[in-house]
């Protein structure tokens, strides 16, 4: 396992006996004990994820806000200090460079939290589209990120001295003191459950991890992170999104500013929306016996019409679910098609997403 990067929490994962896998160039824990149990902890109590492999690209300066406004599909100038928004970086062709969250840290400063696999690509993209006055900096290596997710998250943070958590509504963030150190606490996550993301200096990560697990958070790996986000129907870059997928096809219209302001790729995205996409992302459940997996063909009456982008068992629902691209006529709830599992068609039905509320 040479050449893999390690997060500041690598030693903690090894000490816990985690199964480690390469992910986006990092040696990451996929599970500690049981994906099902880790998944259940997040839905019922609280789970703790090391997501320090994710990247943070900071902007500071007189051009920072205008630059990010042009880079992102979502509104940025209207974002108030202390608030977070989800948005997309698009290329000129209207494909998705990355999906990110944008944090307004000050009048003239923001940062993007980006996918681990895309840090270098995003950073180059941002630098290419920014002037000196936007002050772009990649601070991924010096930043640790822990995600505390689940209904007990606020109680656990309160035990460690965090205050005013009731006032921190979803998609808000603030500087905070936690376990004796300074962090940025953000009421966000990637699981479909309530929770917080905690940004801290890399050197503080081990102490925070220890304090949070001592306070009752269960260590959770990337395996549970994936089953949780799939139940919430949250897209995963490289699966539902990539450089040639339009936000319209991925049904992310509500994160695109159609009316005002330009963003890179806006014309192509608008063209796709106006003409109508050729395919749409659909959420489905398996009707027949079988589990859909990423890459399996989707067929209608024997003809391949699409492909599964993510699929697997839903521990919460006790059934198999998935996401995939299909022609628009097949993308609405109630429609049926087959998932081709090892050469055999297995019936599936389109249902409302998120699968789990």
């Amino acid at each position, binding site marked *: 396992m040479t050449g893999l990067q390690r997060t500041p929490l690598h030693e903690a994962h090894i000490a816990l006996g985690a199964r480690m896998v390469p992910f986006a160039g990092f040696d990451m824990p*996929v*599970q500690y004990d049981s*994906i*099902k149990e880790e998944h259940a902890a997040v839905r019922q109590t609280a789970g703790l994820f090391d997501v320090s492999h994710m990247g943070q690209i900071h902007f500071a300066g007189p051009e920072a806000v205008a630059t990010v406004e042009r880079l992102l599909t979502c509104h940025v100038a209207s974002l108030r200090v202390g608030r977070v928004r989800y948005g997309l970086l698009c290329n000129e062709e209207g494909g998705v460079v990355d999906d990110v969250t944008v944090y307004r840290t000050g009048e003239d400063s923001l940062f993007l939290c980006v996918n681990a696999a895309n840090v270098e690509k995003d950073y180059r993209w941002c630098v290419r589209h920014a002037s000196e006055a936007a002050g772009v900096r990649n601070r991924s290596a010096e930043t640790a990120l822990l995600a505390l997710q689940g209904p007990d998250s606020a109680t656990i943070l309160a035990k460690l001295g965090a205050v005013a958590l009731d006032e921190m509504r979803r998609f808000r963030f603030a500087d905070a003191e936690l376990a004796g150190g300074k962090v940025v606490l953000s009421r966000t996550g990637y699981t479909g459950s309530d929770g917080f993301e905690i940004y801290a200096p890399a050197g503080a990560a081990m102490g925070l991890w220890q304090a949070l697990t001592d306070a009752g958070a269960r260590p959770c790996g990337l395996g549970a992170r994936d089953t949780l986000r799939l139940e919430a129907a949250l897209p995963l870059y490289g699966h539902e999104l990539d450089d040639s997928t339009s936000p319209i096809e991925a049904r992310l219209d509500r994160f695109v500013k159609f009316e005002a302001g330009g963003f890179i790729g806006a014309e192509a995205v608008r063209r796709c929306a106006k003409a109508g996409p050729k395919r749409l992302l659909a959420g489905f459940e398996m009707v027949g*016996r*079988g*589990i859909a997996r990423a890459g399996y063909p989707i067929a209608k009456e024997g003809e391949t019409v699409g492909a599964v982008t993510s699929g697997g*068992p839903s521990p919460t629902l006790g059934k198999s679910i998935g996401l995939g691209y299909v022609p628009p006529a097949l993308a609405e709830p109630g429609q049926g098609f087959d998932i081709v599992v090892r050469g055999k068609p297995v019936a599936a039905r389109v249902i409302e997403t998120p699968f789990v509320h």
Partner: protein
Amino acid sequence: MGDYDIRNDLRYSAEDEWVRSETKGVTIGISDYAQQQLGDVVFVELPEVGRLLEKGEPLGVIESVKTVADLYAPVSGEVLEVNPALAETPEAVNDDCYGEGWMLVLSVADPSEVEGLLDRAGYLQHIKDREDQGT
């Protein structure tokens, strides 16, 4: 090396199946090492009764939350029985891999194939070799 329950009274294939000799043939399942590697088993696909299998032939599929793994025939023979309970309770493979989690019974075409499988010491060495290689 991890902590695995590898039993003396069984034979093992390099693909992590265990084989127990019985009067009617051999009962087959996957080892404790294999179930630990897979994690939570959620789906098991087994062959039809009556199917003839060649040693090494894929005979079914076992899926955990994140992984899809093939099962291989550790010896040649005819499928006499499959465990019907695994359709509803695939987690038996995790909970009791040498008991309730059994997968199928094969008639044995060539008893020397059973003799040629790994014993406990040989299988433990095989696990260790793979762990040392980091696979």
